[in-house]
């Protein structure tokens, strides 16, 4: 057996090389910091609407919380940028684009209408949570 192995050494070496360099890559590598960034930004989005709901209608003015919208928009852009640098990122980028468009629409709606009703706040809170969840689930599945 040992002699067979010695004779076939170049072939075995080549096989080993091929096997060790042959890793299947279908999805990006798991990123713990990105998972934290996603959960923090999703939580901040939820908190934005919880806080708005706790305010009087007159205190829900867009100008008062514009900075929080901008911070969240920057976080989503940062998550998108990190994902743009990953391999096999098509599905992730599609999820992030939907989230980004939805958040922008929510921000613009508030800006245009100056304030939000209780119903609009509850609807946006639920809808945006729906956009965040697939991103979170996808990142966690890479673990």
């Amino acid at each position, binding site marked *: 057996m040992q002699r067979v192995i010695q004779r076939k050494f170049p072939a075995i070496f080549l096989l080993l090389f091929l096997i060790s360099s042959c890793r299947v890559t279908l999805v990006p590598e798991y990123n713990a910091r990105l998972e934290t960034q996603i959960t923090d930004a999703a939580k901040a989005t939820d908190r934005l609407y919880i806080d708005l709901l706790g305010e009087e209608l007159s205190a829900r003015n867009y100008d008062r919380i514009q900075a929080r919208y901008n911070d969240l928009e920057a976080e989503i852009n940062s998550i998108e940028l990190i994902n743009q640098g990953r391999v096999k990122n098509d*599905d*992730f980028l599609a*999820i992030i684009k939907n989230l980004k468009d939805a958040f922008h629409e929510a921000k613009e709606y508030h800006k245009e209408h100056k304030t939000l009703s209780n119903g*609009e706040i509850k*609807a946006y809170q639920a809808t945006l949570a729906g956009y965040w*969840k*697939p991103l979170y689930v996808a990142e966690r599945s890479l673990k």
Partner: protein
Amino acid sequence: MAFDINEVFAQMLQAIKKTAKDDWGSIKETATNYFQDRKLRVELLTSLMIDKEIDKEFFLKRLADEKKILESELHSVAIVTKAMAQKAANAAIDLLQAAVFKAIG
């Protein structure tokens, strides 16, 4: 005609199940979770409109969002499925590699 939301969601779940075929087992939990979330969201939006807390135009825009959320969920399910396939394939390669190393001592 009566609209049974539970029946509709059950039918949608079955349609996804039929399409997913072999991958259904691995994505069942994720997909079921998403459908449960959707059911709760649509019930909330419907009750907000019935109680006149949101107008019809706003309600329809949120329903349009549901289509986009479903699209995101399907991308997410695709990632979950691919991640599982990747883990399985690499585990098989690791086994092969270990077997080859063992054979050559």
